[in-house]
């Protein structure tokens, strides 16, 4: 178990190096490939020149109905005019247009800070930046919580509910 007071840079079994990254102008196909390459992250980080973090595209930002329409042989014969317009729009989507502000921490921050940032951003991963501010890796919320969450026993819950 790694305590949440551990600095991010010392969490050597939780810090994932070489995170899934796309460029701002990458399209939906590149985004899908990137997210598929690392199912743990459940996002694609968007980085600019020199590895500077620009944002993140969580899986929730991807329109899955649109993906079904884009996949050959999956419902393309059912495309209505409205869906066709949506498809055309979807093909123009870029990482830059889909990205949100990313939860991020520095190597000297604690894992608890990482959990807090992910909670604030409603994200399941937090980008880890090196001393120069470049994207170095990420932390996954559920991996951090797996050791930290304690399940109370029913008797303890009953005790806690007593006035």
């Amino acid at each position, binding site marked *: 178990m790694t305590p949440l007071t551990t600095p991010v840079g010392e969490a*050597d*079994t939780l810090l994932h*190096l070489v*995170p899934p990254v796309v460029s701002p102008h990458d399209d939906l196909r590149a985004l899908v490939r990137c997210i598929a*390459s690392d199912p743990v*992250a459940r996002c694609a980080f968007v980085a600019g020149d020199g*590895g500077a973090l620009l944002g993140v595209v969580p899986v929730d930002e991807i329109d899955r109905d649109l993906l079904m329409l884009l996949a050959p042989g999956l419902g393309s014969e059912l495309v209505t005019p409205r869906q066709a317009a949506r498809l055309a729009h979807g093909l123009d989507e870029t990482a830059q247009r889909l990205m949100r502000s990313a939860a991020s921490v520095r190597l000297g921050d604690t894992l608890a800070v990482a959990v807090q940032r992910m909670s604030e951003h409603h994200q399941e991963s937090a980008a880890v930046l090196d001393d120069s501010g470049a994207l170095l890796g*990420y932390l996954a919320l559920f991996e951090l919580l797996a050791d930290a969450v304690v399940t109370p026993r029913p008797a303890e819950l009953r005790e806690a509910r007593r006035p």
Partner: protein
Amino acid sequence: MATVLLIDDEARVGAALRFALSPHGIDVVQETSAAAGVARARESAPDCILLDVDLGGDDGLDACRALKADAQTAHIPVVMLTGMVDAASTARGFEAGADDYVPKPFTPRELHARIAAHLRRAGAA
């Protein structure tokens, strides 16, 4: 000090390797093309080679075959860097003569443990 040669076209992978391995006294040098990487391996005989399967145009698998076919470099352990869910690339890497693989992303401890094991076997650690 042991030396690892990274052949990968992304500078960020080099930064990640240095972060994970430098604290353990392992030096990381990087080449960004297959040709330059193979040439450097012949020149400097690193203790271990980390080779990206997807070398952005250059074929990492061809580089692996070249390293294993050359008497000067055949003994150097080659560890392929692959995508986490890219089982086909992993299989092709072993078929090309790779000794091991590390899926991206990796944790610092996992990477060091794997590299240290190869360095021990090669008598470099």
